[in-house]
């Protein structure tokens, strides 16, 4: 186990290193000029060049990237170009709302997705199955800003069940988490359905029935733990997909999280913040995958981590 974790740690560091290199390179070749954003339109060429020198942006790529890594080694994510504070402080302040939103979304998508998938599998070939699968298809294909605005209109503006936007109470969480969760729910219901259909065909389900077990026990005790195994691996990967959705959903609902921070930073080419948010997302994805891999053997005894 220790050897496994050590190996995974080395792998994770390499992955994160790769992510920083690719992101840094993309931002370097980007035609948008961060210095122009800082100096403003009216600034003279001398001012612009002096700021450029000050920030070290006149140096060649490898020097800039080397310096970034050196600072990263000292846990320094740099300073924002436009907001007068450290990137790590900005991210740290915005992390709790985003984590809360993600947790809410994961709960939404699992409850919705798994229930839909299980019911569809048990009613395979019926109208219920077809209806659920059409619903899941809509969930997968609907753009999140449309779903978000629709939710806002129906549940906040018309019905007034939930606040229109902002952050603070559980009521504020419901609509953004649901919007973010609907996409995943569509995905999970399809995966859960096919996984469940596959498991229900297995010989050990027939054995369980031949023992005289009640139907709910066959499904909950025998089919479900086996069917859920591929889903767990997916949740780890899912965090990456979430990061994209979070940018959209946080903007729509005015949720003060990392997504908003990233959105503002991208508009203003605030490179240190973009780098910081990317790195944090990458860490989240790596951790999510690791967590999924650590949980799987708890359910499936055949899997050993080596």
């Amino acid at each position, binding site marked *: 186990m220790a*050897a496994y974790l*050590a*190996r995974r740690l080395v792998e994770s560091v390499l992955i994160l290193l790769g992510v920083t290199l690719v992101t840094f390179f993309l931002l370097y070749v980007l035609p948008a000029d961060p210095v122009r954003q800082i100096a403003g339109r009216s600034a003279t060429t001398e001012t612009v060049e002096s700021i450029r020198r000050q920030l070290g942006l006149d140096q060649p790529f490898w020097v800039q990237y080397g310096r970034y890594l050196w600072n990263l080694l000292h846990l320094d994510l740099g300073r924002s170009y436009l907001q007068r504070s450290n990137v790590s402080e900005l991210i740290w302040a915005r992390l709790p709302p985003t984590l809360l939103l993600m947790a809410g979304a994961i709960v939404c998508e699992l409850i919705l997705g798994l229930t839909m998938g299980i019911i569809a599998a048990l009613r395979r070939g019926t109208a219920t199955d077809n209806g659920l699968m059409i619903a899941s298809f809509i969930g997968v294909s609907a753009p999140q800003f449309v779903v978000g605005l629709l939710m806002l209109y129906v549940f906040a503006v018309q019905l007034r069940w939930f606040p229109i936007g902002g952050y603070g109470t559980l009521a504020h969480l419901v609509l953004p988490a649901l919007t973010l969760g609907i996409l995943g729910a569509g995905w999970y219901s399809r995966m859960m359905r096919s996984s469940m259909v596959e498991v229900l065909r*297995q*010989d*050990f389900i*027939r*054995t*369980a*029935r*031949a*023992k*005289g*077990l*009640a139907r709910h*026990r066959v499904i909950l*005790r*025998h089919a479900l*733990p*086996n069917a859920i195994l591929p889903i767990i691996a997916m949740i780890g990967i899912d965090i990456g997909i979430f990061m994209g959705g979070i940018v959209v959903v946080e903007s729509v609902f005015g949720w003060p999280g990392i997504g908003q921070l990233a959105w503002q930073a991208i508009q203003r080419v605030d490179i240190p913040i973009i780098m910081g948010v990317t790195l944090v997302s990458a860490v989240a994805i790596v951790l999510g995958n690791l967590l999924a891999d650590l949980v799987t053997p708890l*359910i*499936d*005894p*055949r899997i050993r981590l*080596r």
Partner: protein
Amino acid sequence: MTLAEAPKVRADAAPAETVLSVDGLTVSVATETGLRPLVQDISFALKRGETLAIAGESGSGKSITSLAVMGLLPANVRATTGAVRLAGTDLLRLPEARMRAIRGDRVAMIFQEPMTSLNPVMTVGAQLVEAIQAHEPLTRREAQARALGALKSVRLSEPERRLRQFPHELSGGMRQRVMIAMAIALRPDVLIADEPTTALDVTVQREVLDLLRDLRREMGTAIILITHDMGVVAEMADRVIVMKDGRVVEEGPAIRIFDAPREAYTQTLLAAVPRMGERPAEEPPPPRPSVCVLRDLTVHFDVGRGLLGRATHRVHAVEGVSLEVRQGETFALVGESGCGKSTIAKTIAGLVPFAGEIEIAGRKLHSQADITRAVRRDAQIVFQDPAAALDPRMRVGDLVAEPLVIHGIGTPPERHATVEALFERVGLSRAQIGRYPHEFSGGQRQRICIARALVLRPKLIVADESVSALDVSVQARVLQLLKELRDELGVSFLFISHDMAVVDAFADRVAVMFLGQIMEMGTRAQVFGNPHHSYTRRLIEAVPIPDPGHVRPSRERLASEVPSPVRRRDDPPRRLLLRDVGGGHLVAEAGPG
């Protein structure tokens, strides 16, 4: 009084009492064109302590009959007429909740596939306890004690530890014992065993059959044994029902069925069953040139990963095997699962890296990379499962012609002519060339695979369990085809099989393998007629004999476990030396050191 509360019929009841009767049972599947019968008008009665075998080939409806008794038919299949009576109650008319109380308690079932019939994520103990608690109001501790007792009665080694283990930690034979323990834990009146030993090695099959027989004697359980294997029928059954196409062909006491079968179908079925020791010893053919020679062939797979990703253990799949297949002969490799026989087939096909030397048609090969396209032209392979070996989206004619295309042989019309000729040769018609694999039966598909293997005119065909999945009557015809092809075309066979009777009927020379090494090698008459090695003798003794009158010497009944071919990297297995005991008959003995 509900049925679940009814007193169970115990062993002390009158011996001739009928526990289960099936009257005029018809089972049909719902199709787009209406109901299509799978089983028609079946009737039988099962007495206490009796073993009734339902024998038949695939598609005869024997498994559907047993599922109908259990009330476990698939959703689109149902029992349309007839009755299944257990102690006077018609099970077919029972609501599901009451049927559930009977299922597993008074009628229990064990299935063919022990490897997949247990839930992989639950411990053996939890699965046993669950079955017991579903029917008896016992506490967890009491149910656990009952489960332990059941595991002891199926003679599983270390029963306490098994309760805490997961299915994947047990071998196939051990899992089937667990399945039997689960089925008998509640002392059912009827035990339905659907092909209980078909997926098991012959020595394990022997142990499981002995166990079933002992349990029947001790508990008085009536057994319905569903099987295609007439050897198993002869060893186990008091009475036999022979089924074909959903109908009963013949019914009677086992001895009468085997000694004087009345129906033509039963006669053909019994005639097709391969039997050990029936083929007379023939003169050894004059020495011919060799087609395939293995010299010190060794195949290892590294497994397990240490700190730096280095393998910690090694599977010794094949460990220094040397043998020679001569032109026009059938050389059989026999052994139980995991002995390395299929690995040898894969090695010759170039699918596995190896050490040592393989010589095919004069070419000496020393690594996987040496097995080039030209080599493969001389050595073709026919696998066990023809359905999996044929691309379902290609026409069978194209499948057979494909090797010609790959090797760039002939023009399209020439290829077509070759394929047509081959189709006729393997017993298919020219008209079938444009069809797809799913339109053929299992035996026909294997003929297509054989045609594909022959199309390049190879010198050697490696047949890896090629007839094992076929029904006996089909198997007999495919073996006959292989014999004809061998004699006509002079092609050699490396025939890999676990079925000793088939090997005895078909092979010229035989090598017996165990844990990657050859235990005994010689002509068929030498190895089977005069086996020297104890393992060879054990294998031969374990083969079921299709003769109910045959008396088997009693033997100590212990669950044996095959040692593992996985060893630590620094702990290689001991190589055995082969000693000639006369006339080229080689027997393994421990080497020096």
